[in-house]
């Protein structure tokens, strides 16, 4: 009998995968646990994405939010903001979704061995970074300081709040901020860049992983570089109009690259000149 990898006729054909369960994270965001068949599960590297679809509703690129050390479980955290993502978030346990992938470049967690790792996430950007967090914590002894700077819109839109305490106990310095809150919120209010000074980072021995809205990543990268972190030690996950996932259709072009094939994770030193070009 063939495993799932051998059974796939090609990377453009979705693999049918059943929804095992789903969890509501925020008012519009769900985490779906999918059940890949086959003995190897769904191996992936932190930072990679899949093309995910509910039948008849189109396909969207969604980062894998699970633990790369547990490939038997395939997790996607999805924000319902359009037809395709709403159909995915509406999926019930037992329903079949289509999955292609994994695609794209990973977070450089191996290259970061021995370094302090700064993870700066904005909004749902924590989902693509969660596999990196789990990998880093699973190999805690191989890294220096592990620092999470996480910004969200409001307290009720923060993701994985039930896990942050456990991550802190395992050696992740967790700093959370929101843009807006009422008096019941006892945490920090302000933009995520305001957390950088508080974290007291050593730029010379740090590697940074950024994921969030592009403008948030621009400001965060600038603040990190002002603190002494070199642009080639900052890595950012980009989002463009990814459709084929394999570098054929060209919809996700960014500069001379295709995000689905050459990204989504880029070095900031490579990326920054393209981001300075308007409408690119």
């Amino acid at each position, binding site marked *: 009998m063939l495993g799932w990898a051998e059974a796939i006729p090609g990377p453009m054909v979705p693999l049918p995968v059943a929804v095992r369960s789903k969890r509501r994270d925020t008012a519009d965001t769900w985490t779906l646990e999918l059940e890949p068949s086959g003995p190897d599960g769904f191996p992936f590297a932190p930072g990679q994405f899949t093309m995910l679809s509910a039948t008849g509703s189109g396909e969207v690129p969604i*980062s894998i939010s699970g633990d790369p050390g547990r490939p038997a479980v395939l997790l996607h955290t999805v924000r319902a903001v359009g037809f395709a993502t709403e159909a995915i978030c509406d999926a019930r346990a037992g329903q079949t979704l289509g999955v292609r992938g994994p695609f794209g470049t990973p977070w450089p967690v191996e290259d970061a061995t021995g370094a302090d790792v700064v993870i700066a996430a904005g909004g749902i950007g924590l989902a693509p970074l969660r596999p990196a967090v789990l990998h880093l914590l699973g190999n805690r002894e191989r890294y220096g300081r592990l620092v999470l700077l996480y910004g969200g819109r409001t307290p009720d839109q923060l993701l994985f709040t039930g896990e942050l305490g456990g991550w802190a106990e395992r050696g992740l310095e967790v700093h959370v901020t929101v843009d807006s809150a009422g008096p019941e919120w006892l945490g920090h209010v302000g933009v995520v860049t305001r957390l950088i000074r508080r974290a007291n980072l050593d730029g010379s021995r740090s590697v940074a992983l950024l994921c969030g809205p592009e403008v*948030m990543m621009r400001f965060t990268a600038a603040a990190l570089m002002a603190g002494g972190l070199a642009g080639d030690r900052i890595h950012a996950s980009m989002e463009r109009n990814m459709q084929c996932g394999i570098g054929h259709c060209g919809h996700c072009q960014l500069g001379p690259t295709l995000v689905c094939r050459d990204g989504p994770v880029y070095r900031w030193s490579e990326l920054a000149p393209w981001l300075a070009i308007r409408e690119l």
Partner: protein
Amino acid sequence: MRGIEDLITDAPVFAGLVPAHRELIAGCGVNQQVGAGTFLLREGDPAEQFFLVRHGAVALEVHAPDRGTIVIETYGPHDVVGWSWLFAPYRWEFDARAVEPTRLVTFDGACLRGKCEDDHELGYQLMSRFAASMADSLQATRRQLLDVYGHARVG
């Protein structure tokens, strides 16, 4: 126990000051400890002091009748709370409330303004540092206004 002159050395807003200026500034400061929920500033009240947070957290907030209390920003260790003591009419524009037990250095604004009048070099040094802190805060507030997470990616 560290004196106030030592305590302000750690704060970025006072970084690089010559010892004589640090001493003058420290002379207008006293240590203070407040409980969670204590208001340091109230909108409309005379702005007679400012605060350097040593430990704890202070929320800058405003009350709107239709929205309740809105927290605008939170200050932590080494942050300075309060600018209005520097500018006429010396009235607070917002509320500031300790959100947890907080230790502060509280500075007498009138005392410091008087010293700046007498020593313009101190005035320049202090003003340029507060201007940098205010610019930093202004830029952060502009970024906050972008509401970047309202238009975020899907997953």
